[in-house]
């Protein structure tokens, strides 16, 4: 196995999850690889939301997961929430959004994710980073003592920033593309 292959494997195992490329334009093949990486991050987010919302999750575990979820987002990212009744957007910090989810007043919460997702094209912004939006759908069920109390379906449009980064491993320079999440718009689409 070549030295370069070993370094790539090391990067993958180190959690950087790189998409390694030499140039900085986005070809269809590269876009495909970046999409996979973006989806992986969004799936991590979905998983964390499910754990944080789950009433069976202990407070300390939920707090730990909130920290992990926070790390997926760029500093200063906001959650914008609108409902069917009120289309005006309410803004929350990422941390507050998760804390509110953790504090919901139900005996049991069930959060499911539709397998459908939609990934936009990537557009270059003036700072050289690429930006895209991944759309996913979540179904939420909140149970009270007398059974199902509330259910809704929300659309989540998640901003993704894609940036080319550089690192050195064993003195060897490596370029890779990294994905970080940004603002997220949460829109209620169905309520019962």
């Amino acid at each position, binding site marked *: 196995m070549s030295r370069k292959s070993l370094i790539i494997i090391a990067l993958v195992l180190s959690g950087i999850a790189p998409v390694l490329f030499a140039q900085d334009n986005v070809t*269809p093949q590269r876009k495909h690889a970046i999409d996979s990486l973006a989806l992986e991050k969004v799936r991590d987010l979905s*998983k964390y939301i*499910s754990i944080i919302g789950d009433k069976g999750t202990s407070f300390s575990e939920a707090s730990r997961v909130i920290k992990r979820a926070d790390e997926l987002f760029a500093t200063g990212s906001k959650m914008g929430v609108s409902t069917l009744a009120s289309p*005006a*957007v309410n803004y929350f910090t990422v941390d507050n959004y998760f804390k509110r989810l953790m504090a919901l007043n139900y005996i049991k919460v069930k959060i*499911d*994710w539709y397998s459908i997702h939609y990934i936009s094209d990537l557009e*270059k912004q003036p700072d050289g980073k690429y930006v895209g*939006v991944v759309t996913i759908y979540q179904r939420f069920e909140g149970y009270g003592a007398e059974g199902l109390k509330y259910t809704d379906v929300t659309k989540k449009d998640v901003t993704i920033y894609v940036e080319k980064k550089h690192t050195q491993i064993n003195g060897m320079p490596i370029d890779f593309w990294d994905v970080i999440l940004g603002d997220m718009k949460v829109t209620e689409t169905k309520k019962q």
Partner: protein
Amino acid sequence: MNLIKWISLFVYIQFYLRVEASAQTIVAPTLEDEVVLYASTKQVNQFFRRFNNEESIDGSRYYEKDSLYRNPITRSFFLNLLFDKENSFVKEDLKRQFIQYVGDPEKPVFLDFHGGNWIAQVNTIFYWEGKEVNATLFLKLQEEKIGSKWVINRVCFRPFEEFFVKDTQDTVHFLHPLSHELEFMNLYKVFHDDKNILQNYTERNYDPDYLALFLFEVKKGNLRFKTVTDVKFHFFQVDNWYFELSQFNRAGYNTGWLISDLQKLDSKEKDSLLKNVYNRYE
């Protein structure tokens, strides 16, 4: 087979082939729901791709080398899907004409994200003098040395406009034609008179820059952003046509970003419509 049936069949196959990645993350609540979500035009980006037939039913991107890229047959399916079907103001015949025009096999018309001639209308609420007041911002996509960005190019804010209503028939308030001989000493009259008619001393075509005023007031802390309430887009990219794109968050298959208004126009009508759009309060 119509498009919804086509999507249903696609989702049906997906549904039974699906392997659940993890019990915590992926569940397909109902087949019906999934069909609805597939049918929805979920992003403006998807509207562009569907309009141009640059993606498959499941949203996978087609590139130029793909055989179905901008395919005229599947494109006409998608174009039909992109109208708000609950809007009776846009007549079927007009839609047909539009679809024929953009789908002309000799000279097809495609939308271009970076092609200009489309603007965003963002309805917002600001705090102003202790009250919540609507402000409509208009933004356009500006190309930069690297990449592009949305920039604000206009604002509609009713309190400013009311402030500048001009009485064009005013024959009382003016600076007489020999004012210059007195080195305009009579300006005292302009600035000490009733401030409400100050604008009557400006030239006939005076057009206040409301955006400059708006930015000034935000910077001074007199205007404070609260929220966005609605977004729509106005497209002038297709020669001799205008259409409006709005988001429909409702039950059924005809949801997401859809054409909510369609008009056939000549170049003169285009200018007056654009002016109209910029003066809209919703």
